[in-house]
């Protein structure tokens, strides 16, 4: 059977494209095809991305992929975006919530929208979820991408907006742990002054030249869906508790990924089943919170 082309996979995305190949948000078949074609080499060969637990990502309908930033630039988001397109059947488009500064820049503005990445506004996220799209969220925000090499597998504070939104739109959260991003571009410092001059939050500085990502193996570990019950207007304390559960799930996915990476035995659990035991000691994920 001949190998399916990228264009054919784009054709199979569950998105209402117009006769001109553009969806109501401006996502373009032509641009998706070009971007995925360029990404394929990096995804499959340069970074040899390994994806685990993809069966946890719903094949259709609304869902929120929520995970950790792994340092430097947006390699993590790009590979998650690639994983659900290259590996899922049918392929899915993960739509990210980009930092606001991106849309101010020529070409970045045009391209980000055409490949489905919009400014990180609650209005965008809610609308996309209401239309049963797949949202990609990094609750650490820009603080997460600013992690230095030594902090690459840690988690910084999470925002809470994503959780309120998940409750309001009754969206399952699929946690994921991303490994290797910090090794690919080991950041030794961030220049906030230079960033301010260039209109971005900061500029990551690496200890070698040219500062291009190294060809290290990247891994994405998806965990079982977390479904919380509520309306989104709960007290901050309640939301903070739910956010901690998501954070803990992601931490466990990272931790287990690291142990496997170091060659330690996996124990009785299979990767991606979401039922994880580890130093964070949380109860099994993959269950409705407060409802079952």
């Amino acid at each position, binding site marked *: 059977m001949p190998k399916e082309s990228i264009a054919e996979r784009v054709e199979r995305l569950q998105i209402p494209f*117009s006769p001109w190949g*553009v*969806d*109501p948000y*401006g996502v373009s078949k032509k641009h998706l095809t070009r971007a995925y074609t360029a990404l394929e080499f990096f995804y499959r060969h340069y970074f040899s991305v390994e994806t685990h637990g993809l069966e946890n990502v719903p094949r259709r309908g609304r869902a929120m992929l929520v995970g950790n930033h792994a340092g430097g630039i947006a390699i993590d988001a790009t590979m998650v975006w690639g994983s659900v397109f290259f590996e899922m059947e049918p392929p899915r488009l993960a739509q990210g919530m980009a930092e606001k500064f991106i849309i101010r*820049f*020529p070409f970045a*503005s045009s391209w980000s*929208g055409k490949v489905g990445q919009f400014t990180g*506004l609650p209005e965008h996220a809610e609308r996309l979820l209401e239309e049963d799209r797949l949202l990609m969220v990094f609750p650490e925000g820009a603080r997460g991408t600013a992690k230095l090499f030594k902090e690459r597998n840690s988690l910084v504070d999470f925002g809470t907006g994503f959780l309120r939104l998940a409750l309001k739109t009754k969206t399952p959260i699929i946690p994921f742990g991303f490994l290797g991003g910090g090794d690919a571009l080991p950041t030794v410092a961030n220049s906030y002054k230079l960033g301010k001059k260039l209109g971005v939050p900061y500029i990551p500085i690496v200890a070698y030249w040219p500062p291009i990502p190294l060809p290290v193996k990247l891994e994405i570990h998806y965990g079982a869906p977390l479904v919380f019950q509520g309306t989104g207007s709960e007290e901050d304390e309640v939301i903070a508790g739910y956010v901690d559960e998501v954070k803990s799930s992601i931490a466990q996915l990272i931790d287990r990924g690291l142990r496997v990476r170091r060659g330690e035995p996996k124990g009785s659990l299979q990767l991606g089943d979401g039922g994880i035991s580890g130093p964070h000691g949380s109860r099994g994920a993959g269950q409705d919170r407060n409802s079952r």
Partner: protein
Amino acid sequence: MKIVIPGISGGVGQKLALHLLAEGHDVVGIDVRPWFDAPKEIDLHRVDIRKRAAEDVFRRVRPEAVVHMATVTSLMMKGEERNRINLGGTRAVFDHCRAYGAKHCIFVGRHTFYGAAPDSPLFHTEDEPPMALSTFPELADLVAADLFAATALWRFSELVTTVLRVSYTLGPSGHGTLATYLKGPTVPSLMGFDPLFQFMHEDDVVTSIALALEKRARGIFNVAGPPPVPFSVIVRESGRKRLPLPEFLIDRTLGRWGLPRLPRGALSHVKYPVVVDATAFRKATGFRHLYDEVETIAAYRKAFPPPVSPSA
């Protein structure tokens, strides 16, 4: 029903008048501009909406409904006079509606009220503030007129007020901001930006206003037709060539060498999208657009075919 249309001689005004006439209404028009081939059944008055003679029309006709389209939207007309027409005229229309017993007043505004900005959400809803005031100061008087009309909703409870924020019009008449910008063989754009544009066929605009009249929809409504389309696609499908210019150059280029003119503030509209959510209007009136994006651009292209270069 007796309907007065201030601003009847504009592109949409004429079509609306013909549509309402065909539906059996008595149509009375007020406009300083002429409408040479208007049907004789339409009672036309070439007067300024702010003047006494316009009030006399209201006094004599005693309309049941008024569709206020007498705002100057052309960005090329500047200054005090435009402000006076848009704000003074809107105030006069509402004063006359109240004084002479109109039951329903429709203010036809524009969707660009929301403004185009990098942190602006796609698909604005009616409860959002007018960001155009900061991003596009040249629109300030139109925004103020819209807000003035909106205050009628609570100030004049006896009058049903409808504020429509209508997306760009496109179609065979070639009227409207977008249609004018597209007319030449080469359409300037900002290099590296390709915002979504929302437009609807002029016949659908007419249908939407007629439906708002029929349903007496009270409130503020965004009015839109087919889904928005990237600017590059509109230019391509209308048979024009896009001329992407870097931002530092576009200021100095527009209005020269056959390129359309554009005020400074309008540049944000070729940089960032202004798109509205029209769900509330559809729900209130049952409006469904008849022409999709392909048919709408095809109608424009047929009426204004791309100029053929001499070498072709």
